[in-house]
């Protein structure tokens, strides 16, 4: 299995290299050559090499391949986007064939061609009677169900350093948001008001998720990325639930001391970074959502001229908007137009001007 893992790592590295540089770059040639030579050894052993993707798992030669790091899941994601869930490679494959395959996988908008010794396709379960074709999901999602919301809420609030969350539940919720936004259900109708202090974290999280997906959608960001963006935004404040009790204003409460607030991006990121199968955007956004576009903000970081990822920039906008839109004991909730006005004019350097303009315009269009 070690050789198989090595092959997958090198193959993914060559795809990544091809993506970052070009297919003619020396590193692509080197890596493809290296993966070809490992593949050759593997093919000599068994005559054929199969890669199957079942859900988020990579199964190679009928054995699941585990612990292959983020590049393994990136390969799964990349193949999925191409609609490939199975690859069979047989003896006789040439280096140029593998090179072409790598280049095709690396190219975002290109569907892989057919190759003489690489068969690509989809996986089905060989139970004839039960086989059915599933069309793309087309339910009538008028609102997020109370049940799903409740489950996700419980899962969210039960988060602890010793318990991993059920990512699938969060993903399901985000998919609902995406479908609702695609169906052009009013953005404010999807968002929820905060009912109680204990409820505030979760409700705020879902609102930020909705608003961030909405922004991404209005910006024309590829559909493929929406789920990851929504999920990352949903989990942006998860660090608040992981802060030690000594940084809470009162035991069992939700209010954080100032120090706790400043640390929540770190707690969130370090928690999310360790969850297998979760999009890498989640820890990125958790870490960066309180950094500002002008490079200020918190948490403290060692990298000079650090710039937030675009997803963090969008989440920061949604975060700000939702916080100001909600009622809190000491102040009244600001109205949409007041919040937008504040965001646009009062704090230069807080947001990416391009994104904030898009946000304001889109919210207006959605409301009009």
């Amino acid at each position, binding site marked *: 299995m070690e050789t198989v893992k090595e092959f997958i790592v090198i193959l993914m590295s060559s795809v990544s290299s091809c993506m970052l540089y070009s297919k003619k770059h020396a590193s692509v040639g080197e890596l493809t050559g290296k993966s070809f030579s490992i593949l050759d050894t593997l093919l000599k052993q068994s005559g054929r090499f199969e890669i199957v993707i079942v859900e988020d798992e990579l199964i190679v030669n009928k054995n699941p391949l585990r612990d292959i790091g983020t590049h393994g899941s990136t390969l799964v994601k990349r193949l999925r986007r191409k*609609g490939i869930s199975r690859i069979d490679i047989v003896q006789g494959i040439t280096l140029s064939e593998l090179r072409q395959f790598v280049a095709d996988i690396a190219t975002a908008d290109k569907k892989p061609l057919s190759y003489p010794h690489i068969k*690509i396709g989809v996986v089905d379960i060989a139970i004839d009677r*039960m086989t059915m074709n599933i069309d793309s999901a087309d339910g009538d999602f008028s609102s997020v169900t109370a049940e799903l919301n409740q489950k996700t809420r419980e899962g969210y609030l039960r988060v602890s350093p010793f318990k991993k969350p059920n990512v699938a539940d969060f993903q399901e919720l985000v998919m609902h948001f995406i479908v609702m936004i695609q169906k052009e259900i009013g953005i404010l109708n999807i968002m929820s008001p905060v009912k109680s202090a204990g409820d505030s974290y979760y409700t705020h999280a879902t609102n930020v998720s909705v608003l961030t997906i909405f922004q991404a959608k209005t910006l024309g960001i590829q559909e493929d990325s929406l789920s990851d963006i929504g999920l990352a935004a949903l989990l942006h404040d998860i660090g608040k639930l992981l802060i030690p009790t000594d940084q809470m204003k009162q035991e069992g409460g939700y209010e954080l001391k100032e120090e706790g607030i400043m640390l929540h991006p770190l707690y969130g990121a370090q928690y999310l970074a360790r969850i297998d199968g979760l999009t890498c955007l989640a820890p990125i956004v958790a870490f960066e959502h309180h950094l500002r576009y002008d490079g200020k903000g918190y948490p403290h970081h060692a990298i000079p001229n650090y710039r937030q990822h675009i997803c963090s920039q969008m989440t920061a906008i949604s975060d700000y908007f939702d916080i100001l839109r909600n009622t809190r004991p000491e102040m009244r909730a600001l109205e949409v137009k007041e919040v937008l006005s504040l965001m646009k004019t009062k704090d230069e350097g807080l947001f990416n001007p391009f994104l904030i303009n898009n946000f304001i315009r889109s919210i207006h269009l959605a409301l009009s």
Partner: protein
Amino acid sequence: MNDNNKKIPLDAKLLSYAIIELNISRRNVAIYPQEHPSMERSLMRAFDFLKQLFQLRPEITFGIAKDTIIVDEYQLDKKNPVYQEFALSLNKIHIASVTFKNGLTKDELYQFNCFLLEKIDHLPVTKVREVFKKNSFPHVAVVFIDYGTFSFKTSTTDQTTREIPLWEKYVYGLIKNPLQTEDITDAVRDIPPETFSNLLNKFSDAEIKEETYDRVITAYMRSSPQRTFSGQDCKRMFEFFNRLKPDLKKKFLSSSIRTFSQDKNLANQALAEMPFKDIIAFLDSAIEQRITVPQHLMDLITSLVPSSHGNIGDVLLHETVVLDDVLIPTDSAELLKKKNFEKLLSDKYQQDIQQLFVLHTSDLKTSQLIELEHEFIDELIDQRFNQIILELLRSETLSEIEYRSLVNIMRQQTEHLLWLGQFGQFVEILKILEINQALHRFPDINADALQYYHSSDFLALLVNSLRVLGRQKRREVAMICEYYRHKLIPYFMDALAEEDSQVIRRFLMDQLKRFGDKLIPEAMKRLADERWFVKRNVLYMLAETGAKEVTDQIKTCCRHENPKVSLAAMKYLLNTGDNYAIEMLREFLDSKEKEKIHQGVLLAGSFRIKEVVGELTALLQKQEISGSDIQDKIPVVRALGEIGDPQTVKVLQALLTGKSILYRGITEQLREEIYKTLKNYPYESIRNLIEEGVNSKNEVIRTESDSLKRKYS
């Protein structure tokens, strides 16, 4: 499973308890010894529940679909964390189903739990199967996942194709192959309404048999001594309706209204527990679908209307603004009305907004948007992710477990980082580990990671990636070399020995040069290599260091059969000022081998060896037999020009005055070369040549002479 068994439905509660206890006992095995009371208790409880199940059936099979347990055709609550945990623990070791048979003993159950906890998840299925067989469990049968059943549809790629969960297939069976209603009740209730409706929406009205509608509705509404149809079930059913496409929604609504009409008690009991607005919504849907609601059902619903609600229309109006059953304040709701909203906007703000509206959607497709999309490239996200991990490794909020886990993530990522030429991030990893080590933060973890980063396999990988991608990242490569110091020398030497590309060889030698004297011991080892090019490269490297302590070993290479090696050795010796090289050079110049003479001439010129001027002039004075003999004198003229010894001038003059009828062209070229190489001779010795050259008919000679004359005037 035989048909008789299938007819006896399992007690869901019992089944649930059995799984919970099986999971607890499985976990306890990892914590307590077999004789520990807690272990004993949990094993006993799991065993008792299984025994009760065996009274219903002689064997119980749990199908495992990754994180889902399937019993018979029923998928157990997918979101129950205990079921999930139990399923995943089996899935981890490739188990597709496990069957417990009557006759199972407590000890066997304990042993099976031990098997589940063995560290075998990294093994392939075949090996896990072998481990299972060795254990021998007479009353536990296990089916391992057969990945061969995943059939292959070639030459198709489909963005919408996805793995079909087993229960989806079950629902398919429900529609196409009628099952007993009793069998499906719990399963239908257990399927989340949105999922169930999604599945049904894939079928057209015509595909679904009429009785299916009633069967599903009966399944939702059926009451039994164990379970009553509650307001909550009713709510789930309404949710299910609301997600159906119109044709199916109508059919299911009709069926439910029919059932409600037939069973007033059921309707009364369920609807009384429902929030009023849900009942209204249900009624609304029925009316919208043009379904006639029987009068007695209408009366019942009217009787349930609480008087405080007054006007239904107001509630519904609010609902368009209400979120999650909670009314937002009236003034907020009012604000969302366009008229009021615009009224409250400041002039300045309105101007800003107007400007934004002027932009067309197509304007968004600018370079900014392309840049945005670029940020979602997986590789760049990975890169940023690594950056965050590095930031986290610096933070003081990490526990030991978290720190270890993040260090492991970076370790996993390192090979990929190197192959993408992200050497900067790699340097950061080393820096952080070293700093944390110095600060005594998690020293064992740092030591372990650093050991990996200093291992032989890793260093070979590192240098290999530097070989391919290092030329573009010289600053980072320098930092890496500085960090590892002489540890990298053997790996660079290996890479150098195997490298075909001259450009990369040069790069590798540049890196080796950084190590100065430190590379001598390794270089001397490599000098014994049989391959001529390895010797040559080593000699080049040694020549760069200028080390004198190894000259004796180098001298032996001066007589190597390959002139490239001997020449490199001579270069080394010349660099160190060893006279042995001059002896060797003379031998070269006196040689009968043209190649050796040629190399010797080049070397004499480039090192300006005065001691061999005699040998060089002798070469010039040689009788020419062919044009090529004249041609061979050109490099000699150049070498002598580099040395600039005045004794040479006489020979040069002789060459200039000599005549050749046969080889006029090449002779003229030789003369031109003499003038081109005069600049290093003392002026006095070449003054006459310059005077003659100024008047020459040859333009090159004239130009060169003019230039020299100007220089010395």
